[in-house]
């Protein structure tokens, strides 16, 4: 009988989300990030609805991207009807993506 590293608990290939959830550091992918001009925002939430990663946090009267996961795709900036959002190069920031 061989020694297992006990990767697997069952006979078949099952995962248990309560025991192990995986997550990628997708915030490290982007080359530009969304910057919000809060004064123009009318809280319609389209940026949050259309964000593919669904990383927008509801801040009661505006939305902010969670930079841990934002991939910098720019959809929010493109879709915002009030032009609240600009995509700014990551090179302009020195916080390594921590908001």
């Amino acid at each position: 009988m061989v020694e297992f590293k006990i990767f697997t608990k069952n006979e078949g290939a099952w995962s248990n989300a309560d025991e192990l959830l995986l997550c990628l550091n997708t915030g490290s992918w982007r080359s530009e990030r969304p910057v919000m001009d809060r004064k123009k925002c009318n809280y319609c939430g389209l940026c949050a609805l259309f964000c593919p990663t669904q990383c927008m946090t509801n801040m009661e009267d505006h939305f902010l991207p969670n930079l841990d996961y934002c991939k910098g795709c720019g959809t929010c900036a493109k879709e915002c009807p009030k032009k609240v959002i600009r995509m700014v190069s990551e090179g302009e920031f020195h916080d390594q993506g921590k908001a």
Partner: protein
Amino acid sequence: MTSNKKKLSKVFDYLQGEDPFVGGLSFCAGCPLELLVRFVPRVLGRDIVIVGTPSCSATVMYGQNIGAWHNLSSLGCLMTGVASSATGISRYYRRTGKDITVVGFTGDGCAADVGFQTLSGAAERDENFIYICYDNEGYMNTGIQRSSTTPLGARTSTTPVGSARRGKETTGKNLPFIMAMHKISYAATATLSHLEDLAKKLLKAKEKKNQGFAFLHIFSPCPTGWGFGTDLSIEICRMAVKTHYYPLWEAERGRFRLTHKIKKPRPLSELVGMIGKFSHLRVEEMAALEKEVAERYALIEGMSQTIPLDETV
């Protein structure tokens, strides 16, 4: 002035519960499929079992060894086996008397090609589950190969453009129409620019699946494969509807309704001009594609008039 009035979009009302997926998923930046994957379970609710297959969605539907990317119940299958596995699960649960929603979730490669036989079989038997096909018009996960829904003339890695041959030589299958012709309980097309419409159709599918098969076809453009900027996915969905390229309709038992009548379509060139896979189209190739698009819209418009789905059905 109402321009700064703080009012959330109605679409938020359709979203119940938390996003069951983790924050960081391996989809390309700007991928509308990621939006769809996160949207569907929030609208349908948690009492679902998702049946997935190797595809762009597989990377998140399937866990790795014992880890998972989401906390939903799901089964990963073969491409040839999605509709049939979903049948097995839904039939078993039907027997136990529990009302659950089984959702087959695949791309066009599975639904229109290798898994088509089993999809057609399940539809003909009017099985009680929802089948969602996200159509990015190709086998994207394996590197942008053509599928049977790839449109006429499109460039893919297996229909490249050169001096001898120029893109796909046959027209794409009208998959949602073929499925509606099985006279299933509910068939509909939707896309990600029209989120409220998508949410309503998802909920309708959830209700209609109790009477029979429900098929949803979602237009889901691929920034990586089609060649457009990561920020343009939603705009392309919107343009596809406006140019008649992707008509939005629904059908119940073979009776049709156009849910978005576009009386004055924008020129197709406005859509095609945004998409890299069409950038090589010559005048006559563009004309052939325009003819296809016009006929496809006319077909649905005609069906909506001759075999209409009225509200009482």
